[in-house]
């Protein structure tokens, strides 16, 4: 009987050890546009670092919807689970490119067009000159051009999104 319980405890200890080893070796990647590394498992705690998409993390522990992680620079903190994945994301660089249609449609110089596309505040000017060119050739009514212009001029700041989620108690801001 004594020997049986010894074996039982040994198995338990071994299993706990194995689980910890597995957890410790899980690699995660930031898959959202960006993610805050928090000092505690709440959104109201202080931010240790702002992590870019594609940042490699090591999973240490899980607590509810939060993961305790370590960066490659050995920073430790908490991250909301929706911001990470075990699959490495493909990070796209927004290249304006000389061979874009912008240069094809009437030879418009495109280097300054949508240069602010990657801006975190997502602020963008209205209808592009290329679309104007298309609208002219296709005989698009003025009111449709104005509609697109207004749609593309709308700005959504990162701070607006944060306040919106906080107000609705969504995701990392849930109780």
């Amino acid at each position, binding site marked *: 009987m004594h020997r049986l319980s010894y074996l039982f405890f040994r198995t338990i200890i071994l299993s706990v050890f194995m689980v910890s080893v597995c957890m410790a070796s899980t690699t995660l990647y930031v898959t959202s546009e960006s993610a805050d590394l928090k000092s505690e498992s709440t959104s109201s705690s202080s931010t240790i670092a702002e992590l870019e998409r594609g940042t490699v993390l090591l999973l240490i522990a899980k607590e509810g919807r939060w993961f305790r992680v370590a960066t490659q620079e050995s920073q430790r903190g908490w991250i909301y689970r929706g911001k990470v994945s075990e699959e490495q994301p493909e990070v796209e660089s927004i290249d304006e490119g000389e061979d874009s249609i912008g240069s094809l449609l009437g030879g418009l110089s495109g280097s300054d067009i949508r240069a602010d596309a990657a801006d975190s505040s997502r602020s963008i000017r209205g209808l592009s000159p290329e679309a104007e060119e298309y609208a002219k050739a*296709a005989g698009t009514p003025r009111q449709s051009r104005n509609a697109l212009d207004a749609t593309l001029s709308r700005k959504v700041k990162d701070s607006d999104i944060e306040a*919106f989620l906080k107000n609705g108690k969504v995701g990392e801001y849930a109780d």
Partner: protein
Amino acid sequence: MKNYNPSFSKRSATNRRGFLKYLGPFLVLLSSPAFAFNIFKVLDPEGKNEEIQKARQAIEGLTGIIQSAEGLDYKSEFTIGESLALEGFQRYGLPLKNDRVQKYVNTLGNAVAKNSTRPEIPYYFVVVDSPIYNAFSCPGGIVFLSKSLVKGMNSEAELACVLSHEVAHVSHKHALSSVRRAKFFEGAAKIGTINMDGQDGRKYRDMVGNLQTVLFDKGLDKAMEYEADQSAMDVAYRTGYDPAGMIRVLKMLKKKEATATIKGSWFSTHPPLSSRIEKCNHWKGKYPDANQMARVKKRFMRYRQML
């Protein structure tokens, strides 16, 4: 018996070696046109060397198809999206004149887009004053949503799922894949400039016309719609919303199907609702705590009343 000619054989071997010598770099350039163009820029930055420019033109001509559709740079993709959006306003009506509703949908749309598989690009959302139950997305990230579709929903989680579905189409470049065989793409890369009133301009407008047929009438491939549904549930869940919102929207649409306008709506451009509901129910199993995720009914209803 064949005559053995050693000099001929030697020449063939030399030719083969010469051929193989150029085949490698040629294939590398062909497989990566962007890389090829950069090499040409390094070799001849001012474009003065005639031989190098000839080689560049040859490669550009050969890679016209390879660079097409899904391989387009973001700016070109967005230009196509803008052109399609101009057609969308003519087909489905102008933006709803309520700034608060437009801002609400844009904020929610951008919130989910940040957790999508393509969060680097900006997204724009517009609610159009249309009685047809419809939503579609233009390449590059311009998303249309009809007033009727929003009115039929009962929570922010449902709207988050529909917006995530449209964002997924943009992320996966579904619309562009559907028109990859358009003549416009065949020669696009070798042309320096095109005149919108000329032949190439006509090809461009034809391609936008094909996109209209796909998105407004025929619909995307079934597999693409299922992929967007699955991705929508995942993105909504990552943001913090109940992924079952997708199922509730589909069930709502199923109830409306008998009395709604079918032409140009989600009913005619998407796979049968029953099969979508079935698949979404299956995917829901991946989210055991779905019931505990946010639905945000109160705030949504405040904005729905403004429609």
